[in-house]
């Protein structure tokens, strides 16, 4: 059984973005002061496309997702920005809606799939009950009808013998199956936007391939905008159409995946691409990014990447670079984007 991994990155559809985030800023209150975990982040997600938020741990990509769906920890707070979701009933700003509207949007227009399926599913309820829940809440279906829908859903995501497995509990499924269940719950009501937060990080690579194929199929079937949050560059290269690279809470580069990976215009992106042991010769040193990940408590003035950047100059220490166009639909937040090629 083979399938070809393909997505047309050249196929740029200029539709209205399903999700438009502008200037999102999240602050976290800690014992030793307030920390800016997400700083002025803006991006768009279009239907039928996958946007990847790429970055390492602590860069703020997961916090961006949780802020959008309204699940921030109590110590974290959205201090600025808007997130316009274009749904069936018009445009709503996710960061400004009241609870009632948010409940209405959850699942029907915006859905999220988390990394750890075991903790995201309630261990005390059967899978059938949990899958039927969205239908009962939003479409007011009766239990029997909703369960029938749940069976349909399970079949769609590739769970064998769905009728019998309706009454199983989450712990009775394997990791890959549980992730399929989470995805099923997320797409149950045909949301416009699906956020997948490291959906396959905890899975084996063969299962990962299956799950990503499933997501691709669902994306085209439901014409969803997918926001894929990950640290895996190869996964981005294969699955995403556009990418936004994040570092220390900022977006440092954004554009089409094919363009950004072929011609990176930010030293961090280039450094990441070089760190992947792809063509490296056995026994030779890997090119690595010097230094260590940033301490969000003490981001220096100017560019957050200056401590690790081989191109850092005085201007980098004084002025924070903003996203500027460096090509067709390609932006980079660097003072010296043209020099990156020499890094």
């Amino acid at each position: 059984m083979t399938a070809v991994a393909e997505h047309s990155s050249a196929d740029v559809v200029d539709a209205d973005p399903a999700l438009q985030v502008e200037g999102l800023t999240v602050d976290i209150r800690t014992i030793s002061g307030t920390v800016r975990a997400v700083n002025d982040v803006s991006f768009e997600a279009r239907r039928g496309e996958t946007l990847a938020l790429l970055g390492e741990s602590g860069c703020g990509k997961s916090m961006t997702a949780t802020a959008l769906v309204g699940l921030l920890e109590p110590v974290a707070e959205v201090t600025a920005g808007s997130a316009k979701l274009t749904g069936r009933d018009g445009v709503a700003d996710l960061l400004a809606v009241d609870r009632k509207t948010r409940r209405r949007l959850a699942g029907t227009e915006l859905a999220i799939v988390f990394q750890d399926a075991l903790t995201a599913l309630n261990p005390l309820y059967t899978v059938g009950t949990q899958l039927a829940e969205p239908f009962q809440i939003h479409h007011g279906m009766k239990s029997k009808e909703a369960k029938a829908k749940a069976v349909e859903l399970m079949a769609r995501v590739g769970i064998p013998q769905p009728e019998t497995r309706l009454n199983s509990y989450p712990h009775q499924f394997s990791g890959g199956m549980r992730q399929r269940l989470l995805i099923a719950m997320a797409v149950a009501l045909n949301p416009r936007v699906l956020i997948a937060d490291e959906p396959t990080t905890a899975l084996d690579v063969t299962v990962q391939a299956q799950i990503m194929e499933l997501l691709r199929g669902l994306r085209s079937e439901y014409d969803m905008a997918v926001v894929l949050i990950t640290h895996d560059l190869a996964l981005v290269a294969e699955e995403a159409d556009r990418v936004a690279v994040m570092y220390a809470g900022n977006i440092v580069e954004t554009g089409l995946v094919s363009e950004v990976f072929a011609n990176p215009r930010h030293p961090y992106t280039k450094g990441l691409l070089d760190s992947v042991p792809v063509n490296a010769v056995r026994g030779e040193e890997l090119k690595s990014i010097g230094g260590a990940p940033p301490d969000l408590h003490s981001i220096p003035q100017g560019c957050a990447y200056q401590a690790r950047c081989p191109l850092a100059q005085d201007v980098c220490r004084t002025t924070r670079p903003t996203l500027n166009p460096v090509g067709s639909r390609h932006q980079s937040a660097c003072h010296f984007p043209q020099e990156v090629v020499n890094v």
Partner: protein
Amino acid sequence: MSDQLLQVRDLRKTFRVPGSKTGLTALDGITLDVGRGETLGLVGESGCGKSTLARTLMMLERPDSGSVTFDGIDPFSLRGKDLLKFRRRVQMVFQDPYASLNSRMSAGDLISEPWRTHKTLYASRSARETRVRELLDLVGLGAKAADKYPQEFSGGQRQRIGIARALALNPDVVICDEPVSALDLSVQAQVLNLLNDLQKELGIAYVFISHDLSVVRHVADRVAVMYLGRIIESGPTEAVFQSPSHPYTAALMSAAPKLDAAHRGERILLKGEVPSPLNPPSGCRFRTRCWKATDICAAERPPLAVDPHSATHGAECHHPLVGEPALSASA
């Protein structure tokens, strides 16, 4: 072969599971060799038994049968002082840099902890302090790190502390259990470079366990692929990666996402998931997911099929992929 530092023959280990008659067969006859100063990569997905193998080689578990020979000695026959002395020769770097270091001990304490049990190694306090500084320098952390606590370090630096601790007893073999899986990409490269440098400088052999194929391809001299308790393919790294004989190896390589489009071939999607180790399939364990499976695969255990191009490259398969075009072309 006498220049093989570590020889494992037909190692078996089954765990008793309440409610199951057969128990969980974690290791079902493992045979492998590790030469001096070389790196053996061990690849496999969850449930394949690589963690159990690592723990058995570290003597944290006793095998049910089979033999382990380390430099001519059977470590499981040792007792008391001899056993203690032997433990110095094999050390381990753990996967989780957060869980493997006690967060209430400083870096210096952590690195010198092995010497509290092996008191003869560095007898005086000053000798120990000097050696701690040397080790910290060796792993690139600097002597001042000795007084700091794990919380003050990043994941990559914690892993360096773990590596320094593993080197404290001057081992001959270090078993690295997914040493970079929990680390960020930018840090991963640093730690891999460090391991490489240490091997060149100290001549240590590594058993490098990982699920990340690109990492294994970069670090290992030889590679062994595990599935449900058996090594289903092994051989020199390039031979295995360029022309995998076993369908599972091919599927594994095809499933891993690749940065460079030129390396992507037709993707093989396996059916279903890994069967439960409590109830493995008869005959060839991989047959339930294999597209080449026939009747003989259910009936008989597959024999070892040796690659005609490379005498040390073999796979356990009734229908090996020998001679078929490589599914992941290399640059």
